[in-house]
């Protein structure tokens, strides 16, 4: 167990690689209770939210959800999140665990009294079932209730053995998958129901990280933060520029002036893997920094994400990744050979990657 955003969470249950491969081949069960859930209600809720998040809310139908960002006035990312439209006047906002307090403060500061804001993070449990067999597993749990046609970024209310669950077709792995939101008091029961399936194995934070990294999904606090805009993070597709929202002025300015460094995927030449904060260099010149790095269990090579000067973002561009701390051993080969690779660096069998996943922490 490791401390993580104020929660104690397992890095692994049986082993990161085994859990990773199991999720890609069968189904993984993720305890994501740490993430935050907010509700915004009222006749003006949609308008208020549209002004606060980068994705389009006005045309989001009830029963669907959308990925976007909260930005500060400089266009920096306060958080990445998913907005669920529960009814025309009610929204659920799912945010990262480590950012619950600052998100709440920011939203409360920016909404008018017409919209009612509630932080239900402590009352709602969240479990994810992800993997190619997740559809069959959910179908068998839901008997008559139809989820066969639940498309990506849609959600429904279901009842599983007496527990009312908001079930969404979302995830952070790139596989077909579902996220279940329900009262925290039922967490252990739902966990037991799901883990009773032979094909379901629990998956810890370690494999959650390598799964999202193979997909090139950003992790808040690593790849995206208040020092970077969605444009720099190569996530402009989740920003709807035809509306007004907090941070838009800064983004327009950035559009005019251009950006220096952008987030890009990379793969290493071999098994040796770069880690967060490794320097990126080209012909001896520092041109960027690794923000996520690990061993890819599917590719059996190092992989990750880095901010890199824009001119080097071309497929196959050779880069060198080196640790920043002074190297003690003179014989140690410090630089890892790698190349820029468009994301996802690994393509799952089923293409689930039409949009981004949920926020990660």
């Amino acid at each position: 167990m490791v401390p993580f955003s104020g929660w104690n969470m397992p890095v692994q249950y049986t082993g990161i690689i085994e859990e990773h491969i199991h999720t890609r081949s069968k189904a993984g069960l993720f305890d994501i209770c740490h993430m935050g859930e907010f509700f915004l209600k009222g006749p003006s809720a949609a308008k208020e939210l549209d002004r606060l998040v980068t994705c389009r809310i006005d045309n989001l139908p009830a029963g669907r959800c959308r990925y976007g960002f909260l930005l500060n006035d400089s266009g920096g990312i306060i958080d990445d999140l998913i907005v669920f439209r529960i009814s025309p006047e009610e929204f659920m906002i799912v945010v990262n665990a480590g950012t619950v307090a600052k998100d709440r403060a920011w939203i409360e500061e920016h909404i008018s009294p017409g919209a009612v804001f509630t932080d239900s993070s402590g009352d709602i449990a969240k479990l994810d079932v992800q993997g190619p067999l997740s559809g069959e597993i959910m179908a068998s749990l839901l008997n008559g209730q139809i989820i066969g046609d639940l498309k990506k970024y849609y959600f429904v209310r279901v009842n599983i053995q007496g527990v009312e669950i908001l079930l969404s077709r979302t995830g952070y792995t790139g596989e077909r998958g579902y996220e279940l939101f329900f009262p925290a008091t039922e967490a252990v029961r739902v966990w037991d129901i799901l883990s009773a399936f032979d094909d379901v194995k629990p998956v810890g934070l370690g494999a959650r990280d390598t799964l999202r990294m193979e997909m090139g999904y950003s992790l808040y606090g690593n790849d995206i933060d208040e020092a970077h805009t969605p444009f720099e993070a190569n996530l402009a597709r989740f920003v709807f520029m035809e509306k007004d929202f907090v941070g838009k002025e800064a983004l327009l300015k950035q559009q005019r002036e251009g950006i220096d460094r952008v987030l890009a995927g990379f793969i290493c030449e071999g098994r040796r893997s770069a880690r967060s904060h490794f320097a990126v260099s080209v012909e001896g010149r520092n041109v960027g920094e690794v923000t996520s790095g690990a061993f890819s269990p599917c590719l059996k090579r190092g992989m990750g994400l880095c901010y890199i000067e824009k001119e080097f973002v071309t497929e196959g561009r050779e880069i060198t990744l080196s640790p920043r701390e002074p190297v003690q051993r003179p014989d140690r080969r410090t630089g890892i050979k790698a190349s820029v690779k468009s994301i996802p660096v690994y393509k799952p069998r089923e293409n689930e990657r039409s949009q981004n996943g949920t926020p990660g922490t």
Partner: protein
Amino acid sequence: MVPQELKYTKEHEWVRIEGGEAVFGITDHAQSELGDVTFVEFPDTGSEIKQFGSLATVESVKAASDIYAPLSGRILKVNEALRDKPEIINQSPYEEGWICRISVADAMEERNLMDASAYETYLKESG
């Protein structure tokens, strides 16, 4: 239970002393703390090493850890099988998963190592 015939370091390396030579690797405790081993960076064969000096790196999915020489000497051989299958370290840390064979420079250095029962106590104390 750790193998009785081996000597151990505080950094969780084991060493098997065989006359003027020694073979070493990382202990079962070390491999279990690291998790799935994904890469081993070996020292060059023929290079001189100093007792408790860093000489190799073992990477797992999430992190990289330095490996320290249990004795001073010269690298005779590294375990080539680990290049393609570093997970052998997880499966068989004391046998198939050995990392280096060295020639021992100073047999007296063995006194700086723990025997099996001292290492077991050390494991218990470091919790």
